[in-house]
Every structure is written in structure tokens, then in C-alpha cells.
């Protein structure tokens, strides 16, 4: 029995009924897409093709078309990789961690957030692939029997841990997301009239019948997968941070990275979710489901994780002095005042100052402010990875090797291309997949018979 608590605002506004929920989500799929969708698809499609073209150019000609050199072996490639993986963490946290914490507000956002994760991880996985000098031998990283006397891979290497981490992350996220979609596909199948769409969603829903047994298994599996996915939120980005933490380079060699990176990932992920969802809720008229409350809760997560990141920055600065290691202190002085001081400034202001603004209720409940600040956060987080990677490498131990890094148009083009591919995929998702978790939302719909009582 559900009783209406006066203390909290309802999670679904507008006195919706079960039918309303279904219609609100399935109608955009069934009906013709608005013109804006086609335009955005075209734009993102073109950008995506441009990016793919440049990737082919890179693979065909060589890593030399990027701006890397003998001293700075990684720059935009790994920055982009970590940025995309970080973004992905929000979806998993929302889907899995918040499920285990029984936070019902997650249900309006988890489907699209998880979709965002899938696409972000796909974009992330591109980079370790294309950054290889010989991508056609990428299968060497897999421990499969071979004719080199069966040569194993090097389990000491963080890059190899990345291979396992990212592939595990991708597969678990994909399965979790897809399993959640099955009942919703069935709903769509039952509702749509076009025989082609009916058949398509029938295939996608694996013949879901809605029987109690199905639901039973569904909920058990969801719990198991949530249990599997939760540690991934913490482990995957910790492993990604090991790419740097296990090295000897000053600025990389630090134990603070795992918690720093994980909180940074959730931080940037939630910011990206905000960016996407604020647009999506407006254009698909989902304001009743993705309410100001949801936006506010997500902003609170941003405050928490952003503050952790801010504390981590300050800790790094302190330790660089306290350690007494001249290379470490030079690395941070160089970051703040050297040739890339501008990147450090962007990083600090965007990541440390911005989330603190959300302490003000007015700002954290303002849609415009949230949208703008979320973009600032993502830019800041990109620069954080750039600063970590490039400023640590470009001036390390031996002054004779010091150099600068300058990106080329190929660096830029591929990055923008991945944003294009990501948007393209997300738009496809928004058009053809249920953007809200129908079945879950219906479970938190609080309705009572009051409105039927004649006054």
C-alpha cells in the first residue's frame, strides 16, 4: 500500500497513470521524429564520418600524423580515452550503485545514463586501439594460445589490466542495460501498430511474456548484475589510473590516483548526464519524469565528487612540497607556472570552483546554470587528464629531453569525431529505444484514488 508522504515531492509529477507513462515513452518512438532530430543526426553523422575518416588516415599513415614526439608519447589519445571512460562511470553508478542503495529517483535517469555509458565506453575503447603503432596486431594483448611457444602477455602491465577492465566493464554494462530494456521492448512491441516495428521489437524483447516468472528472474538478475557492476565503478577507473600511478614519472607516480580518478570519473560522468538529459527532457517532454529534484540530486553528487577532486588537487600540491623530492616539486611548479599554465588554470577553476557553486540552492535547481556548469566541468575534466599526461611527460627527469607538445588537426579531428559518433549513437538510442525505464518507473508511480473521489 502506498501512502502519499507530504514531506517529499513525488518522483513523478503531473499525476500520471500507468498508461500515461507508457504513452509518454513509446509515442516518440512510434511517431515521426521531430525535424530537429534529423538535423542533429545529419550534423553528428557528418562529424562522425569525418572522425572515422581521420582514424583511417591515422592507421594508414602512422601515429606521426598526431603531434606526439619522443618525449610526449601520449597526449590527446590517452586524454580522450580517460575522459570517455570517466564519463561512462556515471551510468554504471546510477544503474548499479544507486540500485543497491535503493535510491528510487534513479529510475527516471538510469536508462539513458546507462546508454550514455555504453556509447562512452565504445568511444573510450577506440583510443587504446588507434593509438597503437600497429593496431593490426592488437590481438597480441589477448592471452590466447599462439604459435610463439604460446607466449603469454605481460600481466605486470597496467595497459593489460586496462584491456581486461574495459572489456569487462563494457560487457557487464551492456548486459545490464540490455536486460533492463527487455520488458520495455515488450511494452513497445505490444503498443505499436506498424507490423515492421512490432516485429523488430519482438526480436529485441526476446519474446518477453510479462509472466510473474519472467519478472521474478528479471529482478534477481538485475540484482546480481548490479552487484557485479558496482565494484566495476571503483575498479575500472582505478585500473585506468594505474596507467599513470605505476610509472616512475614525477606527476604520475602517486598513490592518490585511484580515488582521485574514480571520483573525477563520477564527477565528469554526472556532468555529461546532466548535459544530455537537460536537452532530452525538454525535447521529448519528459519534465514530469526527469524533475528538478532529479537534476538537484545529480548536482549534489557533483558537489561531493567535485569536492573530493578538489581535495585531491590540493593534496597533490602539498605532497609535492612535503616529499622533498626535487623532481616532484618541479613537476607541480611547472604545471602551475610553466608553459602549460593556462591548461592548469582551466582545470583548477572548472573543477574546483564550479562544483562549489552548487551549494547554492538557486544554482543547483536552475536548469540553465546546471547545463552551462556541466559543460564547464566536462571541459575542466578533459584538461585535468591533459595536464596530468602532457605536463608530466614534457618536462621529466633529464632536461635534455624536454620538449613541447602541440596537437595537430588530426588530434582535434578525431576527438571531435568521437563526440560526433557518440551523439549519433545517442540520438539513435533516443529515437528507437525507450529512454526511460518504463517498468521501473511504473513501480514507483504513487497514485491514489483521491482524484476519483467526488468532492
Amino acid at each position: 500500500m502506498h501512502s502519499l508522504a507530504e514531506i517529499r515531492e513525488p518522483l513523478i509529477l503531473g499525476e500520471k497513470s500507468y498508461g500515461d507513462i507508457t504513452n509518454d515513452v513509446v509515442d516518440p518512438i512510434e511517431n515521426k521524429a521531430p525535424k530537429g532530430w534529423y538535423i542533429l543526426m545529419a550534423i553528428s553523422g557528418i562529424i562522425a564520418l569525418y572522425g572515422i575518416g581521420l582514424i583511417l588516415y591515422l592507421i594508414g599513415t602512422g601515429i606521426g600524423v598526431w603531434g606526439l614526439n619522443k618525449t610526449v608519447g601520449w597526449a590527446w589519445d590517452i586524454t580522450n580515452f580517460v575522459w570517455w571512460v570517466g564519463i561512462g562511470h556515471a551510468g554504471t553508478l546510477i544503474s548499479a550503485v544507486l540500485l543497491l542503495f535503493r535510491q528510487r529517483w534513479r529510475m527516471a535517469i538510469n536508462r539513458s545514463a546507462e546508454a550514455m555509458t555504453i556509447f562512452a565506453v565504445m568511444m573510450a575503447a577506440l583510443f587504446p586501439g588507434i593509438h597503437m603503432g600497429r593496431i593490426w596486431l592488437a590481438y597480441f594483448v589477448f592471452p590466447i594460445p599462439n604459435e610463439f611457444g604460446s607466449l603469454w602477455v605481460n600481466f605486470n602491465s597496467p595497459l593489460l589490466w586496462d584491456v581486461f577492465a574495459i572489456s569487462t566493464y563494457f560487457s557487464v554494462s551492456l548486459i545490464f542495460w540490455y536486460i533492463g530494456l527487455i520488458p520495455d521492448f515488450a511494452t513497445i512491441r505490444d503498443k505499436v501498430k506498424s507490423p515492421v516495428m512490432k516485429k523488430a521489437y519482438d526480436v529485441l524483447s526476446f519474446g518477453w511474456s510479462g509472466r510473474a516468472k519472467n519478472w521474478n528472474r528479471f529482478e534477481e538478475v538485475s540484482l546480481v548484475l548490479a552487484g557485479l557492476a558496482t565494484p566495476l565503478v571503483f575498479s575500472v577507473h582505478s585500473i585506468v589510473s594505474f596507467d599513470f600511478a605505476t610509472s616512475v614519472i614525477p606527476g604520475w607516480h602517486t598513490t592518490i590516483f585511484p580515488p582521485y580518478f574514480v571520483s573525477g570519473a563520477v564527477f565528469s560522468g554526472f556532468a555529461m548526464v546532466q548535459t544530455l538529459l537537460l536537452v532530452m527532457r525538454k525535447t521529448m517532454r519528459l519534465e514530469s519524469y526527469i524533475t528538478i529534484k532529479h537534476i538537484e540530486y545529480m548536482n549534489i553528487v557533483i558537489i561531493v565528487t567535485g569536492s573530493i577532486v578538489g581535495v585531491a588537487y590540493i593534496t597533490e600540491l602539498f605532497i609535492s612540497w612535503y616529499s622533498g623530492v626535487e623532481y616532484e616539486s618541479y613537476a607541480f611548479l611547472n604545471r602551475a607556472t610553466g608553459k602549460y599554465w593556462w591548461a592548469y588554470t582551466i582545470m583548477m577553476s572548472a573543477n574546483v570552483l564550479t562544483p562549489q557553486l552548487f551549494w547554492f540552492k538557486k544554482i543547483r535547481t536552475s536548469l540553465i546554470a546546471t547545463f552551462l556548469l556541466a559543460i564547464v566541468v566536462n571541459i575542466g575534466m578533459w584538461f585535468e587528464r591533459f595536464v596530468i599526461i602532457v605536463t608530466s611527460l614534457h618536462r621529466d627527469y633529464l632536461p635534455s629531453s624536454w620538449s613541447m607538445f602541440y596537437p595537430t588537426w588530426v588530434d582535434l579531428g578525431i576527438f571531435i569525431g568521437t563526440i560526433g559518433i557518440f551523439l549519433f549513437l545517442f540520438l539513435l538510442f533516443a529515437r528507437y529505444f525507450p529512454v526511460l525505464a518504463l517498468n521501473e518507473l511504473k513501480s514507483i508511480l504513487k497514485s491514489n484514488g483521491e482524484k476519483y473521489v467526488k468532492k
Partner: protein
Amino acid sequence: MGTTKKYWAGVEEFQQTPGFLESQEKEFNEKIPVEEFLNDERLDSSTTGRRDFLKFLGFSVAAASLAACETPVIKAIPYLNKPEEAIPGMPLWYASSFYDGHDFASVLVKTREGRPIHIKGNKKYGLLKGGINARINSSVLSLYDSERLTHPLKGGEEISWDQADQEIIEAIAAAKSSGKKIRILSNSIISPTTNMAIQGFLTGINGEEGALASHVTYDTVSYSGIRSANNKSFGKSVIPVYRFNKAKTIVSISADFLGNWLMSNDYAVQYGEVRNPDGDWMTRHYQFETLMSMTGSNADYRVAIKPSEEGLVAIAIHNKIASQLGGVKINVDTIAVDEHIDQVVADLIANRGSSLVVSGSNEESIQLVVNKINSLLGNYGSTIDLDNPINLFTGNDEEVSSLVKEMNQGEVAVLMIYGTNPSYSLPNASEFNSGLEKVSTSISFGLYADETGVRTLYNLPDNHYLESWNDFTPISGDYALAQPAISPLYNTRQAQESILKWSGKDQSYYDYIKETWDFYIPEEEGLFTDIWNKALLRGVYHSEKMPAAEWVFNDGSLQGVSASINSISSSAGAWEVVLYQKTGIGDGRSANNPWLQELPDPITKITWDNYFTVSLADAVAMGANIYLGEKDPASLATLVVNGQEMTLPLIPVPGQKSGSVGVALGYGRGGNGERIGKAAYQTGEDGQHIIVNDLPLPVGKNVYPLVNLGNSYTYRQYNAEIAIVEGTYPIALTQTQHTIMDRDSVLRETTLNTYKTEDKEAYNPAHTLPIHVDGKLVQTPVKDVDLWAEHPVEGVGHRWGMSIDLSTCIGCSACVTACHSENNVPVVGKDEIRRARDMHWLRIDRYFTSDMNKEIGDELGLGQVEMYRQMEVPSNNPTTVHMPMMCQHCNHASCETVCPVAATTHSMEGLNQMTYNRCIGTRYCANNCAYKVRRFNWFNYNAYSKFSEVNPAQDSMARMVLNPDVVVRSRGVMEKCSMCVQRIQAGKLDAKKEGEPVKDGAIQTACADACPTHAIQFGDLNDINSNVRKKAKSNLAYLALEEVGTQPNVYYQTKVRNNDNENNA
């Protein structure tokens, strides 16, 4: 393991019947009715025609592509009669000699399958202890230049040798009869047999009377000042042998004796012998110079002076010595810089008889003063040997000038040009060229149709020195032979053969050499064949040396000196110019050698260009760009001197004297697009030659027109103007940070005094880390703080290691080119170098001192930021360290743990291995290398168009120089120094075949082999008696970045300078 039985398919095969042989040719034994099928009319009427057609089409396409996929046929043609010693896969070494008119060296040439691929010094038997420099070991590449002339030419058209000989003999006869002159213009010939051949030729024309025909010697860089000074001082026009290894005090006034002055490759060897802090004594080196030269960067005391002050410094030293040892002062109007002169004089006098004063100026007056100084000090007979002088640099600048006059007056009918390129390097080249037009029969023996060669009527290309027989006597009493290591690649002929032919001799030059040697070697020495074979095997022959005579200095020679030096110093203007030579390019001969163009200059670390060097203070005052890097181009400046204007990029060099400009000779080759080699022309961002006004742009600019034409060529201009102009110029440097930032775990220096008197902790403190042991803080040596288990390397098997002595590394970079040659390292061109993507496995880091360090920063109370900022700026007169850096083969390598596919592993013998075929190119290893010694193949250097003009591996001829023992890496793969593992394996195999353990010194890496001063040494650290083990245990030994815990196998020896105080203040 097979049997030797052979099984026959049938009688037909056994008997090899014609039918059987025919059937072998056919693909299928049965007859396939192809013809019938295709001619079948039913095909046209078939109802299923379309489908069948597609089937057949698909089949035939598949069959064709399969057929096309067959393995290409590579023909391996075995010897019919195999020479006994020629085993394919095993190298053959020949002793030969290198001489290009400027450097002489005894070399060993490594050939594989009949191709020379590597050159090293003949250290064991060769003259000058086999000392070489970067130009010499890179010369193997010029053998395979596809732009060499392949056959004789007349007027640009092919002509046969016989035809050419005939015409020329006629021309000579015609000239003789018409009373016109015949001249041979050549570089200094130190070959006695060649000289004899020429003499024979000339005598044949001249007979007993007249001098219609003569031989004019022209040196691209002239040292005639020394000869004429010695002639005046001692009555003998010689250049003496200098013994730097007997000099306890060396004073050099602008002589770059380690890099380019006289027999610098010899002096480098000698210098290395006496810079050992553990030796009986260590020489003390004072350098007075304008530019920061490689030699000056190694000096214990260095004073920057203006070129016009060179004579004044010499006179100041002379006068002070004269006042103490008895001599007449030379009066001058201006007093020289007083810094250090007292100390210099005190040291010289204290080491009388074992000191040496030299000058790099070609002014006779300055050389006279230097002679007097050495004479007063009693150095003749000990550190200077006039009795057995060197035979190089016999160029007579006056004769060259008069030849040019004669040519312009139309008096010369036949001119032969051998071993020199006057149309490029003469200061008055335009006059020479106009004179050349008036010579009816001009002949060039050059290997290229170069600046001179395109202007002569005949081009009779000489053999490359690796294809030639020759003999040399660089120093009186010492002889060397050169033998061909490969048959002439093209239809070329040795110039000496031509001379002999035109003298009417029908003898090969080889026979002529043997005949000459037979004639002159005394009978008592033994059987000629034995002597000859031994000389050929070792490359050298020693004859008697002249005993030391009493040399009396003719004081009268000093008469005009005062006036001459006064006039120089009074003519000095605001700016003075010094023309110098770079270590890689030298006088310009090797401008077409991509290895040398890509070799970073030891001081500026700039490749592929020449430029104006000015002092740091001047550059700041002029508002020029001080910081140079990938997107930080140099400012342009225009120099106006002697009525000539020239614009080049402006490079600030710490240590250069304010008010001076330096610019390197040897650039600007091929000004008219002559075919002298692809690497002589500048490439742009796409790697293609830059075309300006339809001509390819040469690398740098030719500054030979700025050479002073006086009685002798001098390389200073005393009155010039220079100013910044608009525009910038991209510069390709391999090093953009020039100071060590006070990181003493990378670089350690001390003074001889400190080393001899104080504890190790004072000059080479051990790295310790504070570790808690039982609640107490214990400073523990780094080696004992270890997460990893010990590899069992100590005492087990080999443990290859190196010792690099910073006291003896002079920065000559011969090791860098040796490494390129041995390991097939690609050349990447200017644009890639600018983008910090050089491929040097071994580099020489050059660090200047800064005025700022942590101590001073603390004292001044500067904040950290400001302190580090100031530390980046070199001092105005810095001291310099050259630090060779290659893969340290760390025992706890940070690169090995991070490769995801285990492409880089550690061998049982201590080497860090790089497995190219496993590498997928993630570059984590390079990122994690604290020493940044790894190099990535960013592009396909072997095929991508950006490298077609610079990388030898892309040239069909030049790729013959590649070492077959070393893989040529593909795109996307990481590479680095392997400690020449191919040599280690070969050495171990040799020892195994002998049945003996590996002897210390038997295996040498290419860099250790090339090093003239033995700064780089390689050996087995587990061999108790090895050199490197002793060095590793020395008090001076340290490991670079020891506290990072990588445990390198390369030990550096702290740099010891022989100066009393720090910062040579």
C-alpha cells in the same frame, strides 16, 4: 636429419627423358581441354550463360589472384669458385685509409657480401692510433650515392674512356706546342705515388726547361699561415706534428683542435690520453676563443675574446714569458684581455718543455708569435716535432690566386681539377668560373657533376676511396695504404690511372704503387712481397723517422708582427665575424651525407642548417628569439660585411664573445641545383625539396665568399654589421633545454684537486633513502631499497655494461654516426627533427652551467618559481658537459614492466631486449623511461614519401649500406640502443669457436669502437678483470638517476676538471 637416398618417381625421372622433362613444365599432367572448351559454340547459346559467365569470371579472377600471390622468385646465385675466405653471412674486414683533403685516418672497412657497410678506426695497427671522427665513419654512405657520375662525360654527354684519353692527350700536346699552360689543381696530395705520377706527367711535358705545366695545391681551408711562419722562423715550410699527449699545459688561441683544426682526429685521441684523472698527470687546457667551439667546451679555463684580440692574447702571453725567461717584448698598441694570462704564463713556465701553445688563426704574424712562445718554452723537440712534420695542408693560397689570374687571361689551355671543388669554395669563385670558361680543355675528376663539375668540359669521375688503390704519408716516416673494398660500382676510373695514361705509361696504378714501393723500400728490410702483404694487411708501414735536430728560432722573423697585429686590432669594428667549420659538415664535402646533416652540432644541437651565432647577451639586446623549439623559430638577421650581404637565422650561443658573429662554412652547396646528392637540399614539411625560382633550395648558405683573400686565406672579418630583420626561420634542434637545472643525480662534476684530496662523499655522494629500521631513521643506500627480488646476475654468466667517462668525452659525436651506420637507424629530415622526433639511439646531451642553482636561490631568497626560471638560462660564459646517453639497460627497467605484450624484456646477460616483431606500439615504455632513450617509428621511414629525399633506406643505391645483421624496423615499432647485441652474439660465437672465454675488449659496441678518446667503454661487468668493472668500482662512478631505482648497467664517471675553483671563475 635426412638421408642421402633419393627416390625416383619412375624410370622417366631417373633417366630424365625428354618426355618427363616436358611434363615437369606443365602444371597438370593430364591434358586440360581449355581450347576446346573456349571454342565450344555451345557457350554462346547456353541458357545459363550469364550464371556460368559469372562463375567462370569469379573462378578466373580467384585463380589469377592466387597465381599472382605466388612468392616472388629471389635468385640466389652461388659462387662457381668460392674465394676461400668469402663466406656469405660473415663479414670481411679490409684495412684501408681515409683521406679527403682534410682528414686522414687509418680505417678498417667492414664488408658483407662484397659491400662495405661500416667503417671504424684501425686502432690496433693504424696510424694516429686509428682515431676517427664523425665525418670519417659516415663516409661509407657516400659510396652508394645514386647521384654519383656513372661514366665519363664530355660537355654533359657520355664519352668512352678511350675517346676521352685520346682527345686529352691531343689537347695536352696542342697546348705544349702552342706554349699554353697546363695546370693540375688539386687538394693537398699526401700520396707519394700520386705525387710521383703527377711529377712524371709534368716532367714529361716540361722536359728539363720551362714550367708550362705545374701542379697547384688548393686547400678548401687553408693552413698556409703556419707553414709560412715556420718557414720564416726555422727555415722550413712545414706543419709540425703536435703532441698534445705530452703537454701538461695546453693553451689554444681559437684552435678547435679537437674538432676541425689540422689533424683533429689525431689530437682527440691524444687529448683523451691525458684527461684521465687517474693517470699520472692530467693536462690543463686553456682556451681563448671567440665562438663556443667543441674544443672550448672541454677546456678547464675558457676566456671569450674578439677575433681581433687573438694576436694581442698571443703577444700578452709572449711578453710575460719573455720577461721571465729572457726575450724581447713585442710592442702593441692595445693591451689584451688580462683575465687568466698570469695563471696561463705561470703554468706554461712551470711546465716548460711539456706545454703546448697553438693558434687556429691563419695569420702568419700570430703564428710567428706562437712559434716564439713555444720556442721560449723549449717545446720544440718534445710537444712539437718539426723533424717529422705532417704532409697535409700544403695548399699555396698565392699560387691559387695567380692561377685564377692566368685562367682569366686565357693563358691556361688544360686544367685538371682533382679532389677539390673551387667553384664552390673559392672566395673568388665567380672569377674562377669566368676563368674556367676560357680554359679550352677543362677536366674534373670529381665524383659528381658538382659546382665545378658542371662547368668543366670533361667529367672523368674518380673512384670513391673505398674503390681505390692508394698510398699515403700523412706524417713523414709513416705510410699507409688504401685498398679497394669493392669493385668500382660504376664506369669510373682512378684519377691516377688517367694521369699515368696521359704520361704515356701503360701501367695500372696498382702496379705503379707496388713498383714505387719496391723501389724505395730498402733491400735490408726483407722480401718486398712479405713487406707489401704485411703493409696491406695492417694498412700501414713505418719507415725511419728523422732524428730530432736543433731548431733555432730566427728572431728576425718577428719584425713585421707588431705592425700586422696592430693593424688587425685597429681595424676592428663593432662586429667581427668568424668563419668556422662544423663537426659534421666540415668544409662542405659531406653536405650530401644525410647522416652528417642530421648529426646535431655538438654545441648548438641544431641539424640541417647553418646560421649566425651570437652571444646570449647580444641576442637579448637585439630582441631576437632566445628560446628555440618546435614552434619557436629563430629570428632572421642580415650580416653586412666586405660589401656582401647575407641573411640567415640568428642563434644565441652561451659563451660566445659579445660583438662577434660566427657562421659555418660548408653549406649552401648546389646553389644551381647541381646533382650532388639529395641530402644537400633543404626539405619542407612534406619532406620534399623546397623549390625556389625553379631550383631546389640548398641547405644553408655558402659563406666561402666571406673568406679573406690576402696573402693567405683567413677566416675572420673584423668589421661587420648585423641586424635583426623581419621574419622567422624554423630551426630543427634535438635539444631545447640547455641547462641541467641543478639536478646532480643526472650530472656530476668536480675538480682534480677535490678528487685527489677529498673523500668520495665530497664529490660523488652515494644516494641514500631514509628508511625506518626498528623505529630509527637509517639512511640506506638506494640499491638496498628494493621491492623486487634480485636477478641472479652477479657472477653468473656475462653481464654487459658500459662506462662513460665524462672527463674524456669531448662531444665529437663519432659514436652517434657509428651507431647509425651499425644499426640501420633511419634519417628523418629537418621537419621531423624540429618536431622532436629524431631517431638517434645514442645522443650526446650537452649541458651548459647556469648562474643560478639551489644554493644561490636560497641565499638570495628567491621563490622556487623564479629560481627555476633563472636556472633555465645558461651563463654568459658557461662550462659545458657532454653526456652521451643511450639505453641504460636497467636491471630494474621501468620500461619492461609496462609493456602489455612483453615486447621488451631483460636478458640473462643484463641487456634490455627490444623485440620488434612483438611490439604493437603503445609507447608506454617510452613514457616510462626516465632517461627518454626510446625512439618510436612514427611513420614508415622506408617507404613514406616524406622521407624519400633523406632516408638512405629509400634510395635503391644507398640501401646497400644497411647492415644485414640488424632488422630494419617497420612503422609503429619502438626501437632503442641494443648495446649492439648483434656484435655481442657474434663475439660470443667467435669465442666459442675458439673454445675460450670472451676476452675483455674483444666485443665492442659501435659507439665504443668509434670513440677516439675511449670515453665510452663496453665490457663484461661479471669479468673480474674487465675494464668496465674496474671503472664501475671507481670512486668517480655513479649511476644516472640512481634514486629512481632502475639500476642501470651504464656507469658514468664524474667529470673532473683541472681547474682550481668552481665555475672556472
